[in-house]
């Protein structure tokens, strides 16, 4: 191989390399631009798709029970029907539920769920015996919901409540049955 031949080959090579590197430089630049733009655009797309994970879309709101003054002089548990408003993304479901307002103690009012922690029957207040007696399997609870006897694994469940502008409010919930601890069902 002569020196001249070699130099031609080398020269040709470097010219090809030059044009190739210019092509690939532009390619890299374009690719980079597109990737950056694509990434920037995918941020709102991903956030949009993940919305239900980023924010709570299902929620049970606070339900009004009545004016707090109404319950100041209670001596026995009072049954009240409340409107429970449940958000399911863009839907709102409203249903009526029963709760018990207990006679206030030291100025605080407790709210009980009437659902038996045994098997979920609705527990009525027995006026004559002054006890909550579940009609299904005769679980008996005291006036404050404490378990007295029967198959119930725990006392009656308290519901979260608050007083706002003189109105007693409650957040209705269901709890898991047949277990000794109070565990909300989502």
């Amino acid at each position, binding site marked *: 191989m002569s020196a001249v031949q070699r130099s031609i080959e080398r020269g040709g090579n470097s010219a090809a390399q030059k044009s190739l590197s210019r092509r690939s430089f532009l390619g890299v630049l374009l690719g980079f631009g597109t990737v950056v733009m694509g990434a920037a655009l995918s941020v709102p*797309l991903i956030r949009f798709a993940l919305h239900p994970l980023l924010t709570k879309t299902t929620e049970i709101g606070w339900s009004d029970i009545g004016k707090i003054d109404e319950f100041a002089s209670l001596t026995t548990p009072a049954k009240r029907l409340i409107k429970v408003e449940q958000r399911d993304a863009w839907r*709102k*479901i409203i249903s009526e539920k029963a709760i018990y307002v207990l006679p206030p103690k030291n100025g605080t009012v407790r709210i009980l769920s009437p659902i038996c922690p045994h*098997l979920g029957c609705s527990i009525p207040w027995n006026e004559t015996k002054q006890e909550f007696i579940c*009609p299904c399997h005769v679980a008996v609870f005291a006036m404050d919901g404490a378990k007295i006897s029967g198959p119930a694994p725990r006392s009656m469940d308290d519901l979260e409540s608050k007083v706002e502008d003189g109105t007693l409010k409650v957040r209705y919930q*269901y709890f898991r049955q047949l277990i000794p601890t109070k565990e909300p069902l989502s």
Partner: protein
Amino acid sequence: MANAKGPERTEQRQSTTFRQRLYKWFDVRLGVGSILHEALDEPIPGGARWAYVFGSVLLFLFISQTITGIVLALYYVPSATSAHTTVAYIVKEVTGGSFLRSLHAYGSSAVVIVLLLHLTQTYLYGAYKGRRELLWISGCILLALMLAMAFTGYLLPWDQKAYFATTVGTNMASDVPFVGPWLKRFMRGGDEMGTLTVSRFFVAHVFIIPAVLIGFIATHVYLFRKAGAAGPPSEDPTNPKLPTQRFYPRQVAMDTVVALVMILILGCLAHFAPTELGPKADPADTQYVPRPEWYYLPIFQWLKYWRGPYAIIGIIVIPAITAALLVFVPFIDRRLERRPWRRPIAVGVFVLILGGFVAMGLMSVRDDRRDPSIAKQVAKQHQEVEQFMREPFEPEGAATSLSAPVVVVVDPLVGAGRKVYESESCDACHGENGVGTAAGPKLAGATAQKSAEELSNLLRHPTAKMIEGEMKPVDVSDEDLKALVAYIKSLK
């Protein structure tokens, strides 16, 4: 010689880098090389130009519309009861919802604009000449399909604007001779606009038209590659003579730059001036002044002039001739001359029609501004939109179920029974409205065979099997029991 060859070969082997070997590994299996060659090495006579970017930009916009459209469907429900609520939910509640919806809505306008630019460039450059008839016709079909996408998508938010514009749009279909009234009913899914109209437009917008569109886009690109790039107007359309440049990198760079600028503009618009949603469609509103989207304004204005016995000429004959002229132009203008200044008739007709469109659109806007009653109503409608946008999101079902009298319980006894059902926590096991849960069987529709007396008896004295399933005897007054039975029997 034989001795010299050995070391040379090992040198070559070492010089192939890992990247090159990886590329080769894939190329052998996938044929990436030939695909890339096919896609990127398309020769362009006369070299890359900014005038050629519109086709690629349209493809890019189509992809953008597809992606934003798919994610919007995550939250959208196509029914007259829920469409508006779900769009309001997207706009007012969902993270980035207003931005993506705006990107989709502005994107549709961008598609129309770039389509017109693409069409104008192709026409002025005479790029439909030289065995490109099918390429041109497929482009015309794509134009029609894109306009159909815009038309069907416009209704989906089911706000006042969408509802009334589509009412007018579908009414126009009834002017088509012979099949008109049938066509209108076919589009609406009945005589009136309603929930079936939303379903139909949704299916057309999301399934049918996109499927056809993708097919025609593929055809269009294939035919384009088959015929080859036409090059500048001075070029011979069938036997190009100018020195060529490959599609990659210069033309690709230009296309990408314009596409990025496009998305930047759309992004800024969507962010700083998001598309608004008006109040929910109210078919009883007799005051509403419907106006179509800007690209339909020329047709809207044109139709105003054609009333009475000659309406058919303006509504059908002239548009049909115009469309036919456009579609068949490669067969009419057959000379190989491409330079626009040497094609005064072809270019003149095009400019005239385009000018007519622009003039019609402007006149429509002017008419609305000049008529004080319409201007006032349009301003009022605009205020209503602003007002609705300011209001917080209102979930579906809130308005009806909060106010007791509106609840659709015909029989007061049934209503009372529902209260008993809920207060006795029957729903704890049998579910809301008796739909049934894991703990208790479904009641809805299950009691048709039983008389009210039988049911009352069962509730008071459950059977052994019911007791086994933890059913308790219902301990309520006779009056409440009667109501409860009425309620359970009403569940369907």
